[in-house]
């Protein structure tokens, strides 16, 4: 049972109107909504009650895995697989392992940060209904958009449109699937 349209979208002139509109919409009880802006707006995170990003955890795990990989790889190679006896010096020469352990920690953490970011954003995404709105191209230039999605239980094609119209919006459009 797919709703006939994706949602209703309102266009705003400046970040302040967008943040105020998002706040109003939350206050009205709308929950399935998203705001689009040409640059990050910190206030939106709070207003839309976005969950805390899981990225730091992903990066931490990536970093730990990288560090372990680096250390264990060197341990395995220098102690077990290819030991070189240099005048009886210890094979497990851990101070010499630090540099590569550090580098691989950073490498794995950075790679997990980027792939984590893409995964959390759901990218790459070849198709998304918001792009059906012609003026949405301005979301990456100078305009601010708020979209209330049709899967919101409170969504009603007419009432939601009227509600968005009552905010400080430049125009309100339906978003086709």
């Amino acid at each position, binding site marked *: 049972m797919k709703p006939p349209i994706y949602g209703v979208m309102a266009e705003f002139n400046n*970040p*302040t109107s967008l*943040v*105020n509109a998002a*706040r109003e919409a939350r206050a009205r009880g709308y929950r399935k909504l*998203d*705001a*689009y*802006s*040409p*640059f*990050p*707006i910190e*206030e*939106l*995170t709070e207003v*839309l009650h*976005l969950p805390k*990003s899981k*990225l*730091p955890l992903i*990066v931490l795990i990536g*970093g730990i895995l990288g560090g372990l990989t680096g250390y264990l790889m*060197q341990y395995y*190679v*220098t102690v077990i697989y*290819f030991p070189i006896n240099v005048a009886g010096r210890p094979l497990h*020469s851990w101070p*010499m*392992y630090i*540099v*590569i352990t*550090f*580098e*691989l920690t*950073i*490498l794995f953490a*950075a*790679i997990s*940060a*980027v792939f*984590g*970011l*893409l995964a*959390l*954003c759901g*990218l*790459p*995404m*070849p198709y*998304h209904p*918001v*792009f059906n709105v012609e003026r*949405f*191209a*301005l*979301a*990456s*230039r*100078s305009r601010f958009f708020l979209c209330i999605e049709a899967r919101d239980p409170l969504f009603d094609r007419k009432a939601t449109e009227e509600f968005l119209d009552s905010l400080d919006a430049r125009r309100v459009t339906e978003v086709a699937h």
Partner: protein
Amino acid sequence: MADDRQIEDEELKPAPVIAPGYTFGTVTDQIASVVLTRRTPVFWIACFAGGFALLLLFLWSLVLLLAKGVGIWGIKIPVGWGFAITNFVWWIGIGHAGTLISAILLLLNQSWRNSINRFAEAMTLFAVACAGMFPLLHMGRPWLFYWMFPYPNSMGVQPQFRSPLVWDVFAVSTYATVSLLFWFVGLLPDLATLRDRSENRMARGIYGILAMGWRGSARHWSNHDVASLLLAGLATPLVLSVHTVVSFDFTVAIVPGWHSTFFPPYFVAGAIYSGFAMVLVLAIPLRHVYGLQGLITDKHLENSAKVMLATGLIVGYAYILETFTAWYSGNVYESAALWHRMTGPYAFAYWILITCNIVAPQALWFKRMRSTPALLFVASLVVLVGMWLERFVIIVSSLAQDYLISSWRVFTPTRWDWATYVGTIGLFTFLFFLFIRLLPMISIFEVRTLLPQAKVEEETEG
């Protein structure tokens, strides 16, 4: 009373970083128009052509090198490193300023960096690419480069993980990868802008694929912010570690003139010094040609000049310390090494480098100097020459005259040494100008956040 407070507030506000009068639209259009236009300025064509010509020279010397071997260079024992490693250290040092601007200044909340970080990061990438060429080519058989990585092989040998040269492989390849990823994450929203602004179908397709469907949703931005901060936090220790590891190539050896503990901070400071010089060399003509003075303002140039002055003083301190240590250690080899540097076959290089790196940059104390772009451009070129000579002197003069007089030998570069070096400058210019033409050279979304209208005003409850 209320008026008084307002006046005070205005005085407390820091001066704007970019020129007044910009809107979200004009910022976007101005930066994107460099890319999304059919018109290419003559300056671009000239620089690109020059870079391309030198790139061909590089390819020529590369072919000759692969056909005949590293003997076409002037390297002979004891100077086995010569130009190749000098250029490697120089190039990778230049890259460091880009990461400093993009990562360290982000963590320190220096928002003025927003209009120079993108091309500085590009500079990092291309400088690391040029740097990487030299150790690869210096190996003699570059197609066997994968022997440096540990993998199960039929030869039954493995890399020596206790050697700084192997650390270098990991440090530099990690640095290149992380720089690329960081750059791409920053580019993502701007690629979306280009996708939405471009009128050409093919361009829209290509930028669209690269932008991966970025739509500027609040969810995207909140994750993007976290990712940028985390990557900056990772890149900061990384950039400091890379030149530290590069300096280990020298300090871990027992060659007099190399074996000293202050090399890591000295190398990192020198790296940032030459890197900011390169940033200025690139920024000054670019902002002039593309009329970007409103975005890359005199303040940016002045701040970069100040960083240059500060790191230059650290480098100067290192030279003094080097001399002091050589004398105070009482070690005959150490003091002889320094004496050879100052009076030996490479004395000319040593004294030019002292002039370029310590004496000349003192002019940056004067505000007039820092606020005249043409003079600043010249000063930066002087620093780049000085830093190259510094790498040269450290590497070559120390190797040429070490412990045993019977093994001394003076290194003289051949024309192919010069051709390879100048060739990588061509490679760098070629890549950099391609970047200028194909991608936004200033981070559009970060500049938007600098505009006063980007601030969300206090809630006005109706």
